[in-house]
């Protein structure tokens, strides 16, 4: 029972982390905060994938002498996928920051309500 609970607990924590993203994006009005919420969400997805790759009894996915067999190594596929995902999130952040600077330069604010008000003037 305790075993089972701790199983779900990890998944739940990851999903809470994931859900911080959408909630934060709607709740926070500051655009930089929205961007951070987006990043939190992507990190949660990455952790989710890595958890899928972990095995009890497995070591790092680098071949060592005298240690053969599938069960001795962690599944390397999620790691390779998540390297790509991390890079994607960095790229998105870079583009978003460039957009933020443009918005700030034009509208003088990063608060969403204020920005929309100035936009429609």
């Amino acid at each position, binding site marked *: 029972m305790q075993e089972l609970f701790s199983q779900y607990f990890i998944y739940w924590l990851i999903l809470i982390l994931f859900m911080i993203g959408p909630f934060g994006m709607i709740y926070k009005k500051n655009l930089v905060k929205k961007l951070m919420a987006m990043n939190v969400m*992507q990190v949660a997805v990455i952790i989710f994938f890595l958890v899928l790759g972990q095995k009890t009894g497995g070591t790092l996915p680098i071949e060592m002498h005298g240690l053969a067999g599938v069960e001795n190594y962690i599944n390397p596929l999620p790691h390779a996928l998540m390297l790509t995902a991390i890079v994607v999130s960095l*790229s998105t952040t870079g583009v978003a920051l460039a957009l933020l600077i*443009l918005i700030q330069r*034009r509208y003088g604010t990063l608060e969403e309500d204020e920005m929309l008000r100035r936009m429609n003037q």
Partner: protein
Amino acid sequence: MREQLPALIIIVPLLAALAAPLIAYLSTRLLRIVIIGAILVSHLSALGTLLRVLAEGPWHYRFGGWLPPWGIEYVIDPLSGSMAVLISFISLVVAIYSGPFFKADTWLRKGIFYALYALLTTGLLGMVVTGDVFNLYVFLEISSLAAYALIASGGHKATVAAFRYLLIGTVGASFYLLGIGYLYAITGSLNMADLVHRLQPLMDSPAVLTAVVMLVVGMGIKMALFPMHGWLPDAYTYAPPPATAFISGVMTKVSAYVLFRFFFFVLGAMNGPVPAALTVVGWAAAVGIIIGSVMAIAQTDFRRMLAYSSVAQIGYIALGLAIGNTFALIGAVLHILNHAVMKSCLFLVAGGVKWKTGEHTIEKYAELSRRMPLTMGAFLIAALSMVGLPPTAGFFSKWYLVLGAMEAWMWPYIVVIILSSLLNAVYFFRVIEHVYMKKAEPKATEENGGGRELPVAMLVPIVLLGVGILVIGVLNEPIVTQILQYALPGGGR
């Protein structure tokens, strides 16, 4: 080299895009030739691939020579092949059109614009032909990032629209990635063909339900399905005209295609939670069609009206998927094709008018038929096709959708389709009336280009698409029986 055709579809525009900054630095004239040439090569290889696929059946291309579940493979069947042909064709046409917009710019801006444009094309083509779900995510991100940047380059309001699109779009992509994660967790595979039979015994697992919801939300955001369409109107309105024409024509449809691929080819339309999800998608689409059409009537800006009309038209495609029988699916796929051509044509016209007169409200379209007869002729064809009058392409897709709804006894859907056709007629005849009947007030401002029509580089694509609508309308019978029929699930040979 013939064996390498499927790879060439993607690689050639990709390499052209990567070399674009260097080429632009050397010569901006050469840049335009290289980009257009690359897209042309991509289009020709897509055509060649499609022809061979129609003759010999699906074509699998293995990257790095690795066998499918371990490596990445491209799968070109009639559906993805015709999508690739469509995308590269629209891309080619819009690339030719975009020339006059960048006459006065520096090499840096030109180079980057064309690079982003080619990358957008690459990303969309890659999403269509891939047979690997994670590879699809990578290309989704390439196309999305390029689209954000292209939209944002349209000016200040465009920046805000692009930032909003970036946030929402990244949420969509993350949802999609998490959905893949669930599928990977229960099957251990990322290859679509492999997923098909590994998923069969697992369809009742709660994880599949989550994955389906995630895919619907993620791709729904990307394709602007009704409650998630918030990003679309602003983005389409403020983006620079060539970018809008391409993005509106193709980008949302590719996401619709991905949804189609997942529901009907990977998961199977009759299994587990998929029918329920399809029903939800169908009703969302039905509401979206009505609301999009009504909102379109309320607009005074021509491009904004077209944007809301896009929301409605995406609804048709989703509706076809939701009904799910042969007629409806043919209608959906045919509508992807038609709408891509029609909407691109309309946005090209809008961009041309903006370029020439600097105006974009509907009132300012008065009497344009005198000054730009060919452009407005193409506009008339596209508008009639959007409404759905018989000889044009738009009629046939709606006809198949209605047939499908009748076969499935979904009367509310038929009411929605007919009602929205009426609404379409209302807002397009308003524009047509301005163009052909209203008298323009005399104006003092001088116009770009001076003479009567648009420059040839802009006029040819518009007319080409306008004629294309008629051709698709006339040839719809062979298109359906020769190509689309084999594109449907179970319709292959």
